[in-house]
């Protein structure tokens, strides 16, 4: 009920008041980082050689996206591997079931590919990265996926250790779900490295949710799709889940 009221109020407010870039990104961040969530996802990688790889994993998130845990379910090659990300993925631990070892990874591991996909670890678990790592500016409005969107440019904060120089994000004016995000190269100005397309938006637990995310890698000519097969928001999650002890369970 609260969420209905929130969406209604947001809609009414947006009609009478123009949002600034930071306000839009703040709302995107609030929407994408609910207090807790538990989801099952399927990730499909389409390689440059035309091969298809599918991964299934469980994802848990708590404290408004500050804590994330990913547990691989399939394929057998990675089954049981876990990745714990705390402090918006500034602290990362990986657990490998065959060696039963936990290894802490430094922040730069965020730049590594997520299981060889076109998503990097920072694309997956960086929680409030949109707020902390970028300075947003509203460029105007454009239509994407037949929806009126805010077009926001997000320049990287100088101190942020992020692989992208800037993002351009198109945010649905109605729901504040980002529909398209262009990720720009750090080295070559105005070169788009990757494009994320969010679609199949459904209202789940009163929260507009993109259930399909496709990351297109323009440089490698590959793409990765993540499909949410199940998601629950704002449920009770044991704090122990997001500890090194929980990682080994």
């Amino acid at each position, binding site marked *: 009920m609260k969420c209905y009221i929130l969406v209604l109020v947001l809609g009414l407010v947006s009609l009478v008041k123009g949002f600034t870039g930071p306000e839009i990104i703040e709302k995107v961040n609030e929407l994408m980082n609910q207090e807790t969530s538990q989801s099952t996802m399927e990730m499909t*990688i389409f*390689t*440059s*050689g035309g*091969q298809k*790889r*599918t991964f299934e994993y469980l994802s848990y998130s708590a404290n408004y996206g500050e804590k994330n845990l990913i547990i691989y379910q399939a*394929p*057998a*090659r990675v*089954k049981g591997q876990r990745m714990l990300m705390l402090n918006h993925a*500034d*602290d990362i631990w990986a657990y490998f079931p*065959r*060696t*039963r*070892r936990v*290894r*802490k*990874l*430094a*922040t*730069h*591991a965020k*730049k*590594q*590919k997520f299981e*060889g*996909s*076109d998503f990097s670890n920072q694309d997956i678990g960086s929680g409030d990265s949109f707020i902390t790592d970028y300075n947003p500016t509203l460029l105007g409005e454009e239509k994407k996926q037949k929806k009126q969107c805010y077009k926001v440019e997000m320049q990287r904060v100088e101190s942020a*250790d992020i*692989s992208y120089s800037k993002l351009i994000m198109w945010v649905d004016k109605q729901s504040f779900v980002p529909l398209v995000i262009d990720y720009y190269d*750090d*080295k070559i100005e105005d070169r788009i490295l990757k494009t994320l397309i969010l679609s199949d938006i459904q209202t789940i637990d009163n929260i507009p949710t993109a259930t399909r995310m496709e990351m297109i890698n323009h440089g*490698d000519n*590959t793409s990765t799709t993540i499909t949410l097969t199940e998601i629950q928001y704002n449920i009770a999650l044991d704090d122990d889940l997001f*500890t*090194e*002890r929980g990682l*080994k*369970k």
Partner: protein
Amino acid sequence: MKRLLLLIFLMPASLLLSQQLELFGYYEPQWMGVSINDHFYNVASNKLRLDIGKQFTHVEFGANVNYVTYHGKTEWHLADYLPTHISNRIPDMLQDFLVFHFGDMAQWVGPVPMPRPDRIYLDNAFVKIGLKKLDITIGKQQLGMGTGYTWNPTDLFNVKDFLDPTYEQPGHNAVRLEMPVLPNLSLDSYFAPGEEFKNSNAMLKLKTRIGRFDLSAVAVRNAWLRTEYSNISLLTDPLNAVNTYHRHLVGGDFVGELFGLGVWGEGGYTFVDLKTGAGIENLENYWQAVLGLDYTFDSGLYIMAEYYHDSLLPGKWQDYSLNHWMWYLTAETKALCRDNLFALAQYPDDLVTPALMIIHSISDGSAAIVPTLYWTPFQEVELTAYLNLYTGEDGRAYAKNLGNGGLIRLRVYF
């Protein structure tokens, strides 16, 4: 033992299904080639690992059975790897002592009259009980310790192969307790009983987090098996060649981040109770340390370097004795020389990860270069291939006579 394993293999599928046991594992054929003394030898193996697991609310059971067959050259004479000036001095009567067989006797050190090239063993078999503030793991389990990638000074059970440092380590029979004490402080401990109580192993570790760092302090008591290869009178009675020393390690480890680089370290000081053994030469208290750092570039290129120091080991190649060589070749020590450097660069792509590893002895200037390739040609299939190219002169830690060669390993998961 084998009957028990057979029973597990033959357990009806319906029973497994009715119990909802998880059944998984891998099949791993492997080929290794090595050039020694103008001969090129082949050794191949086939490993089947079958994991069984079951998770209840507070209890987890896990086990794996491994069946390995060895083919090709399964009998190796370790004298072939020794520097000429040392191997020339080994009397004929001691040559058999240096023969090593793959198979059931693979972990044995000393004279083995019967090579048995196949091996079947139950590796991990444990139950883990999770209470609110305590996890208890009982049985044969992995006891890998420390933050080091190639060397782990605080891990007194395992020695990693620098050509393959992430390969699974064997299980050890122990009881392990892990408990959170405070929100950022936890206690980890194990007890691994020996044949005699006094030869048991125990570890106590306190772990905490400060800022971006995970830190731990550790104390370990260990019964340390050392073989005396230098004393001929001991070799006439092989049982007397293996000595058990008691040692106590006090140390710790850390892992965190400095100036954007991943940094880690691990080390400790070891007190050796010389009264417990038979007086092996050059044995004394010693300290070991590992320091490492890594970084990932925006392109995805990952680089890493790790330094290892062991004050017990010789700092000059002229001081490497038969004992030092044999301890190294039979994994009684983690390295041959005092100061070592390991470096790794890899560029992960979606299916293929080329990598280059270099291990360098700072003590004697020798090095091994290991170009490596990881490839996942299919969803459940992983291929690892590497060449090991030793560059050092005879007598050095990474000398050419250790045998240049390569390995191809396929792993099919199910």
